[in-house]
């Protein structure tokens, strides 16, 4: 592959500028959030005389030297782009924190902003003392060290992960895209196909389920159907190129692409091959879906097709009438996103958005639609269609079938209301 030589040079100067900007911000103490505070940042820049025709301060002095940040961190101007964690949770050991979807571009979630859900806190696990036990209906019960796991042939895939309660069906509904569907993230995962590991132990006839158990203080347990284990499930040890973060299951987690988040058991220590599901607390009394007639759906694994406009979205403001790109994300646990439709007239008409390639199976897909806002009040929304032909429903359509005591798998279309002054709010709130 040939690469123009100036690419490296440009990158070098861009990163040098970045270092200088950060250095200047730290020196001046003028730390300003980016994103929605863009105009503030501009105002501050005007005050310091960094705009043309003046030469910016960050060009007149060297920036931070190499090694100032051995790992690296976002610009101090981005300090407000953090996980969205409620300050009023009843407790923080079994709790969740959301990805700030409206502040992100593309389809990959940075590891530090990946959503979190744990049921007994985040354990600190020494990988040298971590073991994966595989037993039950197998020819040879086996124990693996992390070095063992990494000796298997490896593979990498981009998959989304979504918590099943994202969001609930009852008001109050959230203000921002993150409040609504921020228990959603997407990463490139590297690990070993679960099928290979199961074959290493030899599956016996009658093996129908694999009970996966975490090494956290909740010993989180879910039963996975054997078909999924042999299809595309994997044991992941890396995320976006680096080892898993502790919040994501370091040193090893299960991935069952397209299935509800809690089944992707983190800190994985045990796989028990069985004939029956475990009927664990989390798959009977917790992650089940109560219907209005008193029955409850169980083993509701798939996350169905869904999308949301992340820009412009709730909490943001359109600065002026004129051109605004509408951009958002779509996904489906049942394969690929086939199409995303966008309406800018409160659902009266819909037009097809452009999908950013590559459109991947069980990954986020970025969509875009160029739009000219005429300055009048408007309601904008998106609707995903997946490769099975399934169409993302409205909240009213979901509530009519499931009632509002249903807790999980809310994949409703979510409209944003744009006021005359450009203020954007949740149209359902």
């Amino acid at each position, binding site marked *: 592959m040939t690469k123009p030589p100036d690419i490296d040079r440009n990158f070098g100067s861009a990163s040098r500028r970045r270092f200088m900007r950060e250095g200047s911000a730290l020196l001046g103490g003028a730390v300003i959030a980016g994103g929605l505070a863009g105009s503030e940042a501009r105002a501050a820049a005007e005050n310091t005389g960094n705009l043309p025709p003046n030469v910016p301060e960050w060009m007149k002095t060297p920036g931070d030297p190499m090694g100032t940040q051995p790992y690296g961190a976002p610009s101090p101007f981005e300090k407000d782009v953090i996980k969205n964690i409620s300050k009023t949770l009843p407790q923080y050991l079994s709790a969740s924190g959301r990805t700030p979807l409206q502040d992100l571009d593309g389809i990959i979630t940075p590891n530090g902003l990946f959503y979190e859900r744990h049921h007994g806190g985040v354990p600190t696990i020494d990988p040298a003392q971590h073991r994966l036990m595989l037993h039950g209906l197998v020819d*040879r019960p086996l124990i693996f060290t992390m070095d063992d796991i990494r000796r298997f042939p490896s593979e990498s895939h981009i998959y989304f992960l979504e918590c099943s309660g994202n969001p609930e069906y009852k008001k109050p509904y959230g203000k921002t895209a993150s409040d609504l569907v921020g228990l959603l993230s997407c990463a490139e995962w590297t690990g070993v196909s679960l099928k290979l590991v199961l074959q290493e132990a030899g599956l016996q006839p009658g093996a129908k389920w694999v*009970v996966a158990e975490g090494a956290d203080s909740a010993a989180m347990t879910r039963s996975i159907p054997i078909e999924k284990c042999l299809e595309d499930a994997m044991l992941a040890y890396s995320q976006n190129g680096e080892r898993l973060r502790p919040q994501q299951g370091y040193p090893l987690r299960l991935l069952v692409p397209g299935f509800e988040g809690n089944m992707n058991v983190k800190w994985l220590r045990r796989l028990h091959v069985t004939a029956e599901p475990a009927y664990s607390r989390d798959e009977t*009394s917790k992650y089940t879906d109560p219907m209005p007639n*008193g029955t409850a759906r169980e083993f509701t694994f798939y996350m169905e097709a869904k999308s949301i406009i992340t820009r412009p979205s709730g909490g943001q403001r359109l600065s002026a009438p004129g051109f605004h790109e509408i951009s958002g994300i779509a996904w489906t646990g049942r394969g690929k996103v086939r199409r995303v439709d966008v309406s800018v007239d409160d659902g009266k008409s819909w037009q097809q958005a452009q999908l950013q390639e590559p459109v991947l199976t069980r990954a986020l897909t970025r969509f875009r639609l160029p739009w000219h806002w005429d300055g009048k009040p408007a309601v904008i929304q998106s609707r995903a269609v997946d490769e099975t032909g399934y169409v993302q429903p409205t909240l009213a359509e979901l509530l009519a079938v499931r009632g509002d005591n249903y807790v999980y798998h809310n994949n409703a279309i979510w409209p944003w209301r744009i006021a005359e002054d450009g203020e954007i709010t949740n149209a359902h709130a």
Partner: protein
Amino acid sequence: MPTRRLKSAALAVAALLCVTSAKAQSPYGIGRVATPAEIAGWDIDVGGEGSKLPPGSGSVGHGSEVFGQQCAACHGAKGEGGIGDRLVGGQGTLGTPKPVRTVGSYWPYAATLFDYIRRAMPQNAPQSLSNDDVYAVSAYILSLNGLLPADATLDAKSLAAIKMPNRNMFVGDPRPDVKNPECMSNC
């Protein structure tokens, strides 16, 4: 005697061959065989119908004491809930607009109580209770829900025998269950 010794030696060789050939079937030869003792220490999942419930027993009375010390701070003195889930009541509410989902009203299997308490409770010190104490706390919670007499004692057999009221109310996944007509214009 020599014949018997010869026989057992032959068996040992056969067993060894068996292990060797089993090993050879592993496509990559990665990992090592888990010993029965290792498996016994980690194999804590109890089936819904009570398979693998361990030996031991506990009374409602003892469970009340353990619950007061270990559980009440989060779940309330009578399991009415607090920081932790409500555990008691709600029977007959699931088909109403205000369903109350508790162990007594919602959980399909009693044995799951043992499994969950042993693996995850109390939240500040999981896997610290003895099996006897776990049976006792399970008995107390079931008794608070009217599913066990106040003088009862639970063990593997009696816990597995308890039929939970909501056992038959779980159904499979019928999705896709909602259809959007996919209107494009004049909607």
